[in-house]
């Protein structure tokens, strides 16, 4: 059941704070990413719900997962970004060597 995510909405989100531009099919990738992430989230939530022996996934399950994973998910990214930024900074410092 693959649905079509609203591309416009996705784009809107990505461009929210910044005025950076989005490539042609980048929002598709965004959707892909979103799906993957949601998938991970759902799986983890399901596991968590099982832990509590409940058949349905409740809010607290999801929240608990999100707390942990969001940090986790973003951590890597942040790491990467910080690295990148650091790297760039260094490069700049060194005059773009």
């Amino acid at each position, binding site marked *: *059941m*693959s*649905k*079509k*995510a*609203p591309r416009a*909405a*996705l784009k*809107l*989100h*990505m*461009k*929210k*704070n*910044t005025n*950076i*531009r*989005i*490539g042609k*099919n*980048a929002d*598709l*990738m*965004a*959707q*892909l*990413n*979103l*799906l*993957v*992430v*949601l*998938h991970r*989230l*759902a*799986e983890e*939530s*399901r596991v968590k*719900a099982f832990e509590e022996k409940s*058949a*349905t*996934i*409740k*809010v607290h*399950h*999801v*929240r608990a997962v*999100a707390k942990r994973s*969001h940090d986790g*998910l*973003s951590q*890597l*990214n*942040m790491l*990467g*970004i910080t690295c*990148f*930024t650091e*790297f*760039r900074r260094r490069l700049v410092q060194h005059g773009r060597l």
Partner: protein
Amino acid sequence: MCVSETEASLLMSGQPALQESEPNPAESSAGERTEGLSGVELSDLTLHTEPLTHVVRGLSRKKPQHVFSVSAFEEQFDQLPDNTEDTSHVFHKGDVSQAKGDSSQDLDVSSGSKSGLNLTLKTPFVEKRIERAGLQRKVSNRRLQSVDAFDEAVQRCLEQCPNQDQSVFQDGKTLEDSSWQKFTLGLSDVTELYVQSKKDDTMGPSAEKEREHELEKARDIPVSEPLIQEEKDHEMESQDEEEVVPSSQEDVYLRAEDDIVLAPTQAMTESLPESHDVELQDREFVEEVEIGNVVEIEYENVVETEDQEVVEIEDENAEEVGDEEVEDENAEEVENENAEEFEDKNAEEVEDEEVVEADLEYNDTSQYPERITRRAHRSEGGGAVLGIPGTTRVTKSFGAGLNPREKDLLDFVDEGRESLQDIPDEEREPLGSPEFPQLHPAAELSTPEQRSQQHEASLAEEDVPELAEDDDAQEEPNQSEEEELMDSEPANHSPEFPQEEEEEEEDDDDDDALSAELSMKTPAFVRQKRVFASRTAQTTPTVLKEVNSGPAPQVAKRAPRQKRQTGVDVLPKSYVMSVFKHFAKTKVASDVYPAINEILKKYFERLADDLEAYAAHAKRKTIEVEDFELLMRRQGFVTDTTPVNILIEKYLPMEYRKLLIPVATSGNKVIPKQRR
């Protein structure tokens, strides 16, 4: 397929060409081709038609083909005797008698084989009507049933026994016819009825057939029509037609007092408000009349002929929206009268009329009308099926007919049953169980037609079983329904029910319209019951509003749409939830959405930042696909072993996939175009 079949049948009969005609021809052409081939082949094998037919039969499953093929076959028939056989083989669902050279036979075969839609062929007209019957907002065929008639019908139904829902229904029709005709005398409204009855008449015969299958309304309308007409004719013609007409006529007659009310059962529904005003001089049901009409009509169908009283009741019901109490009394009386009449049934045309008139006088009390109205009401929106004490019984029988309505009513009825039981008991007595069961099944029958609505059906069904058991038992349910509608208690219930009804009705606003019509058909008693409920039900939207005094109906309506906020909803809830549920593979509480929303919000923010950084790192100003790839890799979704494309194929819908993944097509083209 059924639809196609019907359509095919219609097509065959040359009835209004249905849209399927197009597909049919297409299919048929296909079929023809096959047939043609088979024909060619079979031409030699005509002798072995049987085996071939079997073979062919298995092969040919397309019904629409039949439609077309028939015509084609006809032509073929002329040309080749074999062809006809072939076609017959193809079509034949049943046996393809190898009538060779008999185009007519083939036609028959094909038509017959078409799925044994023989009936359908004949009744294309009816079908059409019926199809639209539900859509019709007015109960054109509403047959105004006098209380007496109603009672009679009820009795008949009761006699017949609950099992025969249909039979009862049919019987009811007959009852109505007989009773109706009797009433032809002295109904001032006859003229009005004529108008409608005429309509009904036309509709009647066909409608009657179809009615049972289709909405009660459809039935009622035709029935009512014929009834009306019959009044004039005073002849119990075809029972089906007559049933309709008599019922309508009876209603008309019964309502002598009610000028307009009875007049055309149809008119009733439509003109209920109008008629009510007029009629309701005596009766207070203005609104209910409509419902009553519907109810009556339904009732008529059920009761059919006999119950002039019923008709009256209906009228009364319609009129007496307000006078539940009185109705109860009258209902009882009416019931009694109906019971009496019911027994007499056929004999007394005059008597019936008289009785009807007499009943009319009672109008208010006639519970039947209340019931009817209630029934109608209920069916409409499960609205206040306040049990009308007397009507309950009647309604019950009608309930069967009023299935759609009744279901609604039933819902309410159940609720109100307890409270209303007291009242119904009273009413029941006069009626006696026999009527009820009859009425009920009849009602059910009628109602279903009128209201195809689900909830109504449920109500009706409930009613039916109830009725079957005992009068009392039946009464209760009906009563509860009716009572809810009509009884004074119903006032209590009515608010409840109307609300409930409203809810239902609101949901069924469309249905309401129908239900209103149905209510009209519902027998008087039903109407009575529904006096309260019917009010709401009749005009469903308006009625409900009236009854429910606003808050309920408004529930359905939301506050004015808020301006779309970009940031509020990250993504449409439906989409998100569906995705989540799909991934979760277990039940997901719907209230997780807000939490997910928050998460997604944060996610997007982070995402944007990251991507920005990536793009900047690549010295680009726009975020590209590669950025995303990198992102996914960092997130661990993409590794050396799982290329990105895999993920793409896995998750994205086809359209998107095409855009992302280069696809090689012939001509050395790659889609999408590769930049490098």
